[in-house]
């Protein structure tokens, strides 16, 4: 199973302040540990929301674009890791090892995988539509 470890923004990350050399050093060691244990799939840090955009939709199918920064700093995401582990507890154990001195919040969320979609969501109709598409592709291939 996969978990996303989400790092929340704070005033510092939103101000575009970079972490200290010590923290970067500690983080690199941590990331190496994740990679060497074979659990790290992906990771990224995000720029402050001042470099981001929000696209919102109204009921009539119109969309509006708002420039960052966004107000609720604590609700924003500053970075993430995606890890592959055997149990939720293992994900928590890895999260506990993130070298945060003080402050900082990590959120762990399980990532959806194809097998997580029950019939009600990925309906037989949807599957059938997909099959028509596949058949179409095959027919095209045969035409070649």
């Amino acid at each position, binding site marked *: 199973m996969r978990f996303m470890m989400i790092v929340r923004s704070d005033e510092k990350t939103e101000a575009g302040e970079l972490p200290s050399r010590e923290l970067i050093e500690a983080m690199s060691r941590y990331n190496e540990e994740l990679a060497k244990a*074979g659990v790290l799939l992906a990771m990224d840090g995000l720029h402050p929301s001042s470099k981001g955009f929000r696209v919102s939709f109204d009921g009539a199918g119109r969309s509006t674009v708002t420039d960052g920064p966004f107000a609720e700093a604590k609700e924003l995401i500053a970075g993430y890791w995606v890890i*592959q582990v055997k149990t939720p507890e293992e994900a928590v*154990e890895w999260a506990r090892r993130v070298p945060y001195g003080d402050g900082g919040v990590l959120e762990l969320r399980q990532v959806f995988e*194809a097998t997580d979609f029950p019939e009600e969501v990925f309906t037989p109709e949807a599957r059938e539509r997909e099959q028509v598409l*596949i058949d179409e592709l095959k027919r*095209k291939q045969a035409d070649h």
Partner: protein
Amino acid sequence: MTSSDPNATVAAVWRIESPRLIAGLTGLTRDLGVAEELAQDALVAALEQWPVEGVPRNPGAWLMTTAKRRAIDLIRRREVLARKLTELGHELAVTEPEPGPEQLVERADGIEDDLLRLVFTACHPVLSTEARVALTLRLLGGLTTEEIARAFLVPESTVAQRIVRAKRTLAKAGVPFEVPAGPELAERLDSVLEVVYLIFNEGYAATAGRDWMRPELCEEALRLGRILAGLMPAAAEVHGLVALLEIQASRSAARLAPDGAPVLLLDQDRGRWDQLLVRRGLAALDRAESLSAAAGEPLGDYTLQAAIAACHARAVRPEETDWVRIAALYEALARRAPSPVVELNRAVALGMAFGPAAGLALVEELTEEPALRGYHLLPAVRGDLLARLGRGAEARVEFERAAALTRNERERALLLVRAKECGA
């Protein structure tokens, strides 16, 4: 801590810490069995103390220190024993002088080397394949005997026995705790990679089953492969194997139809391929190819297979597949590791790349191959090529022959449909 089962938390700590712990302790004691016992003792100590004193900041270091103290006690006891035995006029056979307690504590570094030694020891050819697989999953994957047993659908006692016997065999054969050097390295690395590949296949080929543990075996193999790649960053074939596994794993969700029928590669919904794994696979392949090029060596078997898998992964739609390149890669693979099955795959690729006549020419050569006698895919491929050449009557015979040979009901049904489509 979460409200979840404390045993599950301990299991998680064990999974994360045990490989390095056991590797480090085997480095000290030179005895896999003793090392595993010491590691488990340390874990028991943790179970007693952590709930009272809180989980230490660095659980791994805590466990290692605790285990090492016990190792030192053990060695001291052994020394006393050895002295007493000598006094009695006996000689204790020791191949190398045992390090003293002070030296032991200093040897904390080099844990990565110990981990690599552990991999090579667990996959030693003196052990049976089953034993290698079980020992690797146990020592490097941190899986319990129960989990291993469930994954391979064998009784737990069988796995436990296999592991005990494997440790005994290693000790008896005097297998040194080391990574071999020179030409022996390549040979032994083959065994290591094969174990990882076998574990993956056990999970991958069985995906049609209902057993929930099987996909976990794929994940386990992937994890082991990634660990190995981290330990041997300069070994091209290790990255080649990881590339192959990542790309194959990326297709897991697309390999089964809703009714449980297997979906062939060209019929799979590519939108369901896991693009994160595809990217990781392609990156690992790049690495394997550039390492091979830098060393001036030809691509290894796993790298070639990964390169073939990558041709499919790169094609957004099946008709964009680079069959010419796939045919060339199969030719390279056939040269390195000649096998009738590889040749048959090459025939398919030739048929796709240069037209059915090119594929058929190679298939005709294979019909006399004893290894393929009774292999249903030979007539199936032949039938497909003949059908595409408009030789319907001959194609029908081939499809019918293939249908009679396959043991899979769904495949038989499909082949009979194809036979019917060929007309009378």
